[in-house]
Each structure stands twice: as C-alpha cells, then as structure tokens.
C-alpha cells in the first residue's frame, strides 16, 4: 500500500536537551481519518512541523504524497505546502484582512485569477456556514467561526491532505464536536485528515484510528470503536 503520510524511524530534536521525537513510525493511507493524541509536550506539534517542513528530522524519512520532505530545496517548499491544508489551535488568520480575503489569500498565493477567486471563495464559505461573515474581520467573529474560516482557507485549494493541530483547543467544548464533525465530513469527500489533540475523552467518543504519542514515541496505534477501550501497544 502507498501511504500519503509516511514517517519511518523518525527522530527529531530542537537541540541537545530537547529531543522531541524518537524513532516514530506513522503510516497513513489515502482517505484515512487519523487522530493523534497525547499529553502536552508529547511531541504532537513536532510531527506537524516535520510534515510542514518547518523543521527537518534528525534521523529517519518523512514522506508526504511520495515526496521526501527532508530533501526539499528551499525554493520548492512553498509549492510543497500548497498541497497541504493546515489549521492551528490559534487559527492564524491575518488580522487586518476580511474573512473573504483571508480565505482568498491561499488562492492568490498560487496566482489564481480573480474570476476564479470570486466564485470559489463564496462557495467554500458557504460550505463552512460563513457566507454572511465574508466582510467581517477575524476579531469580529467567534472562536468557532474563526476556526471555520481557517478551515475554509485550508480547503479552498482542494488539498489532498488536511492537517489540524489542536483545532478545538481554543473553542468551547460544544463547538469542538462541531469542528470534528466538519473534519469528518471533509474526510468523507476523500481528503486525508490528520487531527492532533490532547483531548483523549473527545477522541474516544468519536473512535476511529487513534495514534497515541507519549514522550516522543508512538505508544498506541489502532482503530477503536466509538467509546471503545484503548489499549497501549507493546
């Protein structure tokens, strides 16, 4: 099987003292929905930094869509990143741009025509239930709405992979479920989704494939029934 996300014996360190990942193996097939859970500081965000090529592995191979990410040249990185949709805990919207312009931005980056932008952005905003917020600025809308704008921006390019780092971390619990359901809906349409969170209880209630990270290593990787028991791999 060909994996769209493939980490083979990956280690990663920030410096001599901060070793974030140790011999991690993660293989995700096309169209999968995967939760990565673990306590704060376990190394979850570090995995995402590797996938985005913000950092490089100190050992092992990270490959995404068949691309050896560590081997990318500096000038190839922007083009590589356009194939990944990413959302973060802190939304990362550009504060002085409207909702529309924030979403349009990831299209403009790819030199898309204005005509396409004018059609595509409202369509995506509509999907996210944000059609009436197009002219608002990020600080004028709620956290849940901001995260949906971030999702719209991540999806407007129609990327094959969506990566979410604690997307529910700054959102009220009731709305968190909504966001996860939204991600699952996106996954139904064929996008591979990788969602990182420390909220183990929420993950268990959804079930599906769960990877648990503890102190930089994978300690569990299996498919779980909703509200099913999780057992540690040994």
């Amino acid at each position, binding site marked *: 099987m060909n994996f769209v996300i493939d980490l083979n014996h990956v280690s990663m360190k920030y410096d001599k003292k901060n070793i974030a990942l140790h011999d991690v193996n993660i293989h995700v097939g096309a169209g999968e929905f995967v939760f990565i859970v673990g306590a704060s500081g376990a190394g979850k965000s570090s995995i995402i930094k590797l996938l*985005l090529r*913000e950092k490089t592995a100190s050992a092992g191979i990270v490959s995404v869509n068949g691309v050896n990410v560590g081997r990318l040249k500096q*000038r190839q990185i*922007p*083009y*590589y*990143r*356009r194939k990944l949709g*990413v959302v973060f805990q802190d939304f*990362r*919207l*550009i*504060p*002085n741009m409207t909702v529309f312009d924030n979403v349009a*931005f*990831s299209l*403009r*980056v*790819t*030199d898309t*025509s*204005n005509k396409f932008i004018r059609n595509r952005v409202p369509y995506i905003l509509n999907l996210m239930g944000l059609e009436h917020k197009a002219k608002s600025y990020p600080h004028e809308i709620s956290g849940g709405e901001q995260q949906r704008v971030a999702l719209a*921006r991540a999806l407007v390019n129609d990327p094959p992979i969506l990566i979410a780092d604690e997307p529910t971390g700054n959102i009220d619990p009731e709305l968190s479920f909504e966001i996860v359901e939204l991600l699952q809906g996106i996954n139904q349409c064929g996008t591979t989704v990788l969602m990182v969170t420390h909220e183990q209880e929420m993950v268990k209630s959804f079930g599906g494939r769960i990877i648990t990270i503890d102190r930089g290593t994978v300690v569990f990787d299996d498919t779980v029934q909703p509200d099913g028991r999780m057992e540690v791999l040994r």
Partner: protein
Amino acid sequence: MKTSSLRYLIKEGARNIWSNRIMSFTSMGVLTTCLLLVGAAYLITVNVNSMVRYVEDQNEMSVFLAEGIEKAEVSSIQKQISNLRNVVKVDYISKEEGLENMKESFGEDAYLIDDLKDRNPIPETFVVKVEDISLTARTKSDLEAIPGIEDVRASSAVADTMTRLQQIVGTFGSAIILALGIISLVIISNTIRATIFTRRKEINIMKFVGATNSFIRIPFVVEGFLLGLFSASIAFLIIWGSYHYLVDSLKTGASAFLNEVFQSIIPFDELALSLGVFFGITGTVLGMFGSLISMRKHIKV
C-alpha cells in the same frame, strides 16, 4: 505572475500602510526628519559657498590718493599696487569718473550735487581686487605704506566673518551630517525592530499557505517605496516653505551691505530639481531597504 496578482500585491502594500498606520507614521517621521536634516545641511553649505564666492568677487578695496598728485606719480602708485602679492586687479577711477559714479548712485536726486562740478571733492581712487579674502588685513597695511595713498577702505570685517563661516560650515557641517546619518540609522533600525514583531506572525501565516518569498516581499517593497515617497514629498514641501520664509526674513532685516550679500542666496527654483531628485531617490531606497530588512529574518521559515 499574472497582472491581476501583481495589482493585488501592489494594492496590499498600499493597504498595509494604513493597517499598520502607527508604524507607518513613525517610519515616515523618522525618514522625513532624516531627509530634512540632510537637505538643510545641503542648502546651508551651497549657500554659504555661494555667499563667500560673492564676497570674494566683491572683495574690492577702495584706495584713495592724496590731493594734487602728479599724473606720473599716479601710474607709479598703480604699478606698486599691482606688484603687491595678494592683488589681482587694479582699476583707476579719476576724480571726474568718481563724481559721475556718485551722481549715478544719487539717481533722481543728482541735481543736489550739480554744483560740485567746480570743486570736485572726490579723490582719485584705485579699486583693488584681492585674491585671498583672509589676507585682506595685511594687504591693507601694505597699501597704506605706499606714499601718496591717503586712505584704504576694505570691508575686512565682513570678509573675516564669511571666511570663518565657510570654515565652520566646512568642518562641522560634514561632521554633523555624519552624526545625523548615524543617529537616523539607529532610529530607523529601532523602528524596524518594533515593526518586525507585529509583522512576524503575518509573514509566518503567509508561508504556511505556500506563499513564495517574492510574493511576500512585493507588498513590503511597495509599502516601503510609498512611505519613502511620502516622506520625500513632505520633506520637500517643508524645506521649500522654510527656505522661502527664511530668505525673506533675512533680506528684510539686513543692512545694505548684507542685503547685497544675500543677493547671492541661490533661489530655490535652481535647487528644487536636484533636491527633489535626491529626496525622492534617498527616500524610496531607504524605505524599500527598511522594509526588506524588517522582514529578512522572518521569511526563512
């Protein structure tokens, strides 16, 4: 890159000025002040040089001969004067010419001295032009030592002042410009350092949606260019206004001689083009570099 993309990026740059208006105004303030100081230094230097040149051109001494000197003696005196070291030119003005000149300067009131024709009180005069204005005092005493010369008048006080002024402007001017240049650089880089913080996140976000470095840079360059252009325009207008004001007030308060010296002040129109071009280029280049420097570190994500 599509023209629509380029248009978008240019518009972004212009919009960023307003979005980051506190930073924009600070940068513009610094840049404008910097240009004003350099511009003022330039104008002062140019004008002091022009005035000194004027005074030097005018640095004539009037040498009055004693009454009743023979024709032959006059030409011998002229020769002696010409042989003095600092003298470049000697013009003879006879009693009659002297009176004629005086009449001319009286203009319409010339009839007042009409009856002087018979007992002309104007002495025979040599107008002596000296080469080095700072040696005026020595040349004057040399002249006074020549027999037959009764009086020598030189505007040596003004000459001294002008020479000293030029020296001061020359030595301190360049030192001041250098010091101001360094101070402005420090202020600008501090301003930029403050900008970095607010812009860092934004650049980071752009990188994560796959923006290339040039895509991120263009709005910054446009922004810096426009800020530079605005600063240059403001500095130009301020300099223009103050120059006119200063020149006018100098001319009204001055004595007759100074007024004549002030005629050598260079009209703004003659300096406008070079000053405008200098401001425009310096402003926009500094603006663009400032912008690029402010983001240089953060584009490497």
